């Protein structure tokens, strides 16, 4: 089984001595209050911030790996996408195959999966925030990297595309990937395999959602009182549309 091990990861002023290990085949939610360090942690794990400590993939430090090889192992998507130039949706998604010699493998499948096939010739700078978010997700998935770091991937999506995205994340996990996605809606983390809670740049807790997201933690970290009742609206993808 593949594993991602984070050992005493620190970024001055942002993250402090974060350590955890996660195994492959898991969809993991990263939660924490605003400014807790969720985006910084994902960026550091993706090698986009200078950090001390170590990030290991199957025992090999990711620091020692050249950019192109690292891209085949770990993929990252930013919280927001700003596209200055009018690349088409298809050409942006194709960039996900850069580390594989631009072989364009599986482009149509991933465009279809993210409901982008009809938009494939549209310039990305003319898309809505939700459509842009789906383009980034499609580009990340096409990399086939076994570790996926997604920063707030669901924030701009409508309910159906949120559920579709979580379903795709689950499929990737079943194939052996690790998906770590930051969320600002704690309730979305309940259906995931594991939850990582960060607060003030430190690791607060890691484990299954039921173990971790206790009333005490929600009150202490998020300053919210939890209430559980049956009137919560539960959304699922229909078996047939």
């Amino acid at each position: 089984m593949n594993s991602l091990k984070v050992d005493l990861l620190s970024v001055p002023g942002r993250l402090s001595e974060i350590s955890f290990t996660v195994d492959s085949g898991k969809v993991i939610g990263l939660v924490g209050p605003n400014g807790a360090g969720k985006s910084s942690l994902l960026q550091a794990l993706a090698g986009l911030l200078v950090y001390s400590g170590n990030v290991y993939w199957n025992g090999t430090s990711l620091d020692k790996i050249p950019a192109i090889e690292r891209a085949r192992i770990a993929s990252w998507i930013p919280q927001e996408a700003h596209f200055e130039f009018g690349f088409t949706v298809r050409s942006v998604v194709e960039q996900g195959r850069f580390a594989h010699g631009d072989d364009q493998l599986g482009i149509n499948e991933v465009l279809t999966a993210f409901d982008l096939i009809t938009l494939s010739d549209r310039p990305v700078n003319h898309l809505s925030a939700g459509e842009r978010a789906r383009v980034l997700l499609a580009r990340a998935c096409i990399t086939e990297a076994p570790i996926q770091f997604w920063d707030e991937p669901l924030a701009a999506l409508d309910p159906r595309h949120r559920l579709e995205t979580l379903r795709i994340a689950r499929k990737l996990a079943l194939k052996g990937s690790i998906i770590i996605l930051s969320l600002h809606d704690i309730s979305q983390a309940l259906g995931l395999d594991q939850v990582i809670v960060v607060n003030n740049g430190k690791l607060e807790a890691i484990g299954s959602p039921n173990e971790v997201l206790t009333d005490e933690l929600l009150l202490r970290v998020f300053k919210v009182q939890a209430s559980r009742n049956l009137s919560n609206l539960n959304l699922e993808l229909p078996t047939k549309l």
Partner: protein
Amino acid sequence: MNLSPHQSKLIMPVMLVLLVSLACVSLLVGDVNLSIRQILYGLYDHTSPSAMIVWNMRIPRLLTALLIGGALSMAGVVMQSFFRNSLANPGLLGVSSGSAAGAVIAIACGWSAISLWFLPAAALVGAFAATLGVLILAKRGASTERLLLAGVALNALLGAFTSYVLSQRIGLYEKNAQILFWLLGGLEDRSWEHVFIALPIVVTAIFLLPISRSMDLMSLGWNEAQSLGVDVRSIRRRMIILSTLLTAFSTAVVGAIGFVGLIVPHGLRLIVGPEHKRLLPLSFIAGAIFVITCDIIGRLAGGIQLGIITSLIGAPFFLYLLRKLP
């Protein structure tokens, strides 16, 4: 205004035909009226009376225009991609003002009179010193904002220095005329030596082509590019060095020419799209077309310097962009 795939295939041959046609027109235009027959005689018969004008004046001028037009336009593409802003231009990092400052020092100190090579050499040294200054000011691995601010600061400083030198030379008309010619930018009296000085542009332009795919990814964000496998630090370095070389060799040969590196890439992106594999070679041809056209207009208008014509065209282009904004 992106072209259809069919139109897209035609754009390169159409532009090449236009370039060759304009080159022919450029050979016909000049202070001395020469007919097509005389131009042809001049081209094939080196002993004919028109040969000297054609071979020693018009062809070097045409080739210089072609090279510097292509270079400035390509440098503009690189800077726009680097800063992820389609209004960026080759002078943002202080290359043009550094080059101008170097040239002004050479003229003011009288070095330019020693040899034809001194002035371009001083301009090249100035250009590289300015770029190095910006990189040091902005620190290693700096963000685009830091680089931009450092570029603005250095451009202002070098502009003040150039104006100071100019103000101290009041009364020395010959030197001031030379400095002014340099600051306005022009193709007058360009010789084969100038063509040779500008030749490294071709090699530099070729070196840009292999990184065109990486530039696609860089132009959508450095972090995104790195996470997709681009060696961002190395590509950034190559983009700055190659863009500096293109701008520096152009400025060293014809002085400071504005707007080419802004208008041509910006307009071309609207027509052919943002992919650098096509944009880079097409921008070279389009830049050459633009500068040769401006030079023809300037000569037909009675000898207006190239820099003035490009600025004259640049102003309405900005007004056009202003109208297109919501």
